[in-house]
C-alpha cells in the first residue's frame, strides 16, 4: 500500500477528532498540549508508517487543517496551494 503523511495546522485545529475517527489505520491522536485557542489539537502518530495518504482525514476535517502527501508515481495535478504553516507546531505553553 502506498505510504502517506499528513501535516496538521495545529493552530487551526480544534481537536474535534473527526479526522481521527475517519482514519482507517488509526494513526491520528490527540496531542497532550493545548494550542493558543485553548484546543487540544491532533497529531499524526504513525511509527509504523501506516498512513496511506487516503485523505479521508482531510475530507472530514471541518477546519481544513490537514494537508496530505502520498508516495506514488507522479501524476498531473491541479494547482494546489502549499500549506503556509509548518505543521504540528503549537506556539503556546503546555
Amino acid at each position: 500500500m502506498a505510504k502517506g503523511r499528513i501535516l496538521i495546522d495545529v493552530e487551526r485545529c480544534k481537536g474535534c477528532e473527526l479526522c481521527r475517527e475517519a482514519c482507517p489505520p488509526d494513526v491520528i491522536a490527540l496531542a497532550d498540549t493545548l494550542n493558543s485557542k485553548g484546543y487540544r489539537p491532533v497529531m499524526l502518530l504513525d511509527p509504523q508508517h501506516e498512513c496511506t495518504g487516503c485523505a479521508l482525514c482531510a475530507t472530514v476535517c471541518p477546519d481544513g487543517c490537514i494537508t496530505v502527501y502520498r508516495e506514488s508515481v507522479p501524476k498531473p495535478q491541479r494547482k494546489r496551494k502549499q500549506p503556509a504553516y509548518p505543521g504540528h507546531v503549537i506556539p503556546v505553553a503546555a
Partner: protein
Amino acid sequence: MVTLEPPIEQLPCENLIYSRPESLAEIQTHYCPGCTHGVAHRLVAEVIDELEIQERTILVAPVGCAVFAYNYFDFDSAEAAHGRAPAMATGLKRVNPNSIVFTYQGDGDLASIGIAEAIHAATRGENITVIFVNNAIYGMTGGQMAPTSLIGQVTTSSPTGKDAALTGMPMHIAEMMAPLPGVVYSVRRSLHDARHTIQAKKAIRTAFEAQIQGLGFSIVELLSSCPTNWKMTPLDAAHWVRDEMIPVYPLGDFKVAEPLQNKNRSA
C-alpha cells in the same frame, strides 16, 4: 514553541494529495469544534476551485452560524438578511447573468423565516445554487427548535422535546423543492463521515454545474451537525446525524433534471 512528536519526515517521492482549496480564505472560522459547517464550506470551495469559477462566483451568506461565511470564502460575497438570501441572489444574478451565484443557508434561515423566498426563487427557476445546511436547530442563537428539528428533540425553545401536535413534523426541504418545475436538481446528502462527505461534494459539484449550464435552480441539502447546541461531542453528533437524522431525512436524489443525469447518482 513546542513541536509535536514525532517529527514529520518527507516521503521519498511524494505528491501533494490534498490541501486547503484556494477559494477558502486563510482566516480561521469561528465555528465550534467539529461543526460540519466547516466541512460544507470546504467542499464548496473545492468544487469552485475544480470548476475554475472562483473569479466569477458570488456567495450570498445567510444569517445563522454561517453569517461570516463571506470571511471564509475567497470570492465576492454578500451578507443577506435572515432568510432572504434567495431574493438577494435573484437580484444579483439577474443583473450579473454571467456570475455564478449561490446562497448558503441554514435550516432556520431557509426552512423557517426564508421559506417563501426559497420556494419562489425555485418556482421561477432562478439560475442559482442553494447550499442548504440542515442541522435540525438554530445554531447561532443558541439552540432553539427549527422546523427541521426531530420529534422529541429537546432544544432551548422545546424544553420538553419537540411536540408534533403543537409544532408539526419536521420539514423536508429537498422533497418539497423537487416537484417545483423551476428546480433542476434537488438532493439530500450528509456530512457525518468521509464516504458521505465525498458524495456530498459530488452533489455540490453537480449543483454548480447545473447553474453553469444555465439549467435553473439547484439545491443540495446537507445534513450537518451542531455539537454545541445538541450538547454532544463532535463524534457523538456525527453518530446522531447517522442514527437519528438520516432515518427522518433519507438521503437521495429527489430531482435530477435530464441534462444532469448520469453525472451523479443517488447516495
